C-alpha cells in the first residue's frame, strides 16, 4: 500500500458526508413532490365532483421536474355526456 492509499483510507468520512448531502437533497425534493401531486389530485377531484360525477382514476396528475423545463400535466377523462342534458343547451 503506498502513502496515498494510506492517507485516503483514513479519511472516508468526508466522502460519506458528501454522498449523503447529495442523496438527501434529491430525496427530500422528490418526497415533497409526490405529496404535492397527491394534494393536487385530491383538490382537482373535489372541484370536479361539485359539478359532475367522475371516476377517481380518470384524473391523472403528473409532475415532471427537469433541469431546464418542468411540466405539470393534468389529464381528466370526462364521462360520456348524457343526451338528456345536451338537449336544453341546444334549444338555447
Amino acid at each position, binding site marked *: 500500500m503506498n502513502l496515498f492509499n494510506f492517507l485516503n483510507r*483514513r*479519511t472516508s*468520512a468526508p466522502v*460519506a*458526508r458528501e454522498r*449523503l*448531502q447529495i*442523496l438527501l437533497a434529491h430525496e*427530500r425534493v422528490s*418526497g415533497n413532490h409526490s405529496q404535492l401531486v397527491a394534494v393536487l389530485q385530491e383538490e382537482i377531484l373535489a372541484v370536479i365532483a361539485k359539478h359532475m360525477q367522475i371516476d377517481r382514476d380518470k384524473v391523472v396528475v403528473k409532475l415532471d421536474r427537469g433541469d431546464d423545463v418542468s411540466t405539470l400535466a393534468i389529464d381528466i377523462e370526462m364521462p360520456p355526456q348524457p343526451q338528456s342534458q345536451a338537449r336544453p343547451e341546444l334549444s338555447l
Partner: protein
Amino acid sequence: MAKVLVVTSGKGGVGKTTSTAALGAALAQAGQKVVVVDFDVGLRNLGLIIGAERRGVYDLINGVQGDTKLSQALIRDKRIETLHLLPASQTRDKDALTSEGVARVMEELREKFDWVICDSPAGIERGAQLAMYHADTAVVVTNPEISSVRDSDRIIGLLDSKTERAEKGERVDKHLLLTRYDPARAKRGEMLKTEDILEILSIPLLGIIPESQDVLRASNLGSPVTLADPTSAPARAYTDAVRRLMGEKLAMSIPGDKKGLFGKLFGRRVA
C-alpha cells in the same frame, strides 16, 4: 402531564430497544413513573433487554383488543418500582394492532404514567407509523453511518407528516440520539462527525452514546445499561440524555471509559 415519547430510527439494529430500556430505566431512576411499550409485534425484544422476558401473561395486543384490563398486561420491574413494561405479543398477527385500539391504550397509559416510551419496530411502514402516531416527543436513534443517517431523514419526514400532532398542525419534538459513536475514529476522519450528522438532519442533539462493551454486557444480563453499571460511559451518556429530556440544560460531552493506568496501557490490546 404525561408525555408520550417514541424511540425510532427507520433502520434496524441501531439501538432502539437498548436505548428505550436505558432511557426508560434512567427516567424511572430519577423518580418518574415510566412505562416502556414494545410495538415490535412478533419480535418483542424489549422484555429480553429489560430482563422481564418470562414474566407477564398478557400483552399490548390484548390491551388493544380489550380482552383484558390494561393493568393486567403491565409488568412492574423488580428493581425499580416506577418502571413498567407493556410487552408485545410473540404470536399474534401484527395486523391485530388497530389504530383505534392503540389510541385507547395510549390514552389510558397517559393517565397512569409520567412517561410512555414507545419502542418502534424498524422500517417506515405501518408498525413504525403506529408507534409514532401519538408521540409528543421523538428520539431518533442514529448510528454514524450513511444508511442509518438516511433512514433517520426519512423517519423525520414521517414524524412531520404522519403523526397526530402533524395532522393537527402541531410539531413533534424531535431529538437526535447518536449511538455507537467512536470519537477517536471520528477525529481521524474514519467516521461521520457529530457536526456532520447534525448539519444533515438538523434536529437538536439529545446525547451521544459512545461505542462501548458495557452495552452488550448489560443486555447479556437482561438489565438496562443505566442499571447494570450506572458509572459506565454509556450509562452516564443515557443519564445525561434523560436530564436533557426533563428540561435541564447540560453541556454536551461524550463520556469516556474510566481507565486506570493498566487499562490505558493494555486496554486496547485486550479489546
